[in-house]
């Protein structure tokens, strides 16, 4: 159980490092956008992991039994609802930002004929 949790945490760290590498090193603008998408998604996974509880069969935070007993069941067995609510906000804003960046990349491609940052900055002349 602990090893599984540690494996998830270390994979999240590895994916964060790989996506930051992609954003910083890859010269292609489209690949930069893809890496930024991976980065924001893995941050969302990390936030969801914050709300996880190591109980047996964790429940989603939705009341199905409309009574005080149902609420006690949720308090003992449900995951934290707050990170999920924050993640929805992050997902929608991330999608809007990705769309805007994709439009920028499309316009750069149409105007200059390339999305390679080295050629755009004229490093290879």
């Amino acid at each position, binding site marked *: 159980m602990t090893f599984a*949790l*540690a494996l998830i945490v270390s994979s999240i760290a590895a994916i964060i490092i790989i996506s930051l590498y992609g954003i910083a090193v890859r010269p292609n603008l489209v690949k930069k956008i893809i890496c930024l998408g991976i980065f924001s998604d893995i941050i969302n996974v990390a936030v969801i992991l914050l709300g996880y509880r*190591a109980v047996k069969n964790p429940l989603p*935070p939705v*009341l199905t039994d409309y009574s005080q007993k149902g*609420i006690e069941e949720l308090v003992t067995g449900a995951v934290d609802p*707050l990170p999920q609510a924050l993640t929805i906000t992050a997902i929608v804003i991330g999608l*809007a930002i990705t*769309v805007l960046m994709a*439009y920028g990349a499309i316009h750069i491609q149409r105007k200059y004929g390339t999305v390679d940052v080295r050629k755009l900055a004229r490093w290879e002349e």
Partner: protein
Amino acid sequence: MRWSKVKKLITLSIILLSVLAGAYYLSSYLTPKIELNALGEFYIRNSYFGEYSSGSPEVVTAILWDYRGLDTYFETAVLFMAIISAVSIFRSMPNVSFHPRGFTNITKTGVKIVGLVTFVAAATTAFHGHITPGGGFQGGSMLAVVPLLVIVGFSKKTLEKNGFNKERALVIRTIGLLTIALVAFYPAFIGKYFMQNLPIYPKEIYGMLASGSLSLFNMAEFLAVGAGFTIIFLLLSNPEGGREA
């Protein structure tokens, strides 16, 4: 095997080994969390019963539109700004009409069936967002898949010929956003708090659970997000370079 492939394999195995080693190292330090946070427990205890009830058994929707409603309100504003800026960037581009034949009849029939099912599922997700998992954002994102399917299976022209062009989508999106603004500002106009939910909006309508303003917000967000993403897909499916394709 070529040297570049060997280099890729070596890099991948180094990453895999370091992940495993990191997990082995971390597993002695991590303790899995058993207790619920105090804030999470407050939301679970209060969302349906309780003194600060929002009238919804779905705790995430209750947090999203009631307890932390201001966050979501301004997030909707961010979405509004992003789509408006995308439309204004693409304003100078000619709206090209082209007549591709689309896919075969098998694909078109499949698109019709899957599109209908997706639409119904999206509407269910959004309109039951205050009872079951789901809500306006999720339903709206699913709704935006339907025009995308039509664009891919038939063509962009088919979608526009059947009356769903960019201007109509902008109108639908504006209606959704205006509804959100009106529902949010109405309690402030009658002297209560901004985005207040329960005593002002009814918890039940004709015996059906409405959860106050939560269902209104979900429906309006469903329209706004679905139409907004449809605008994005319509703009992105313009042919390359504005040429006839």
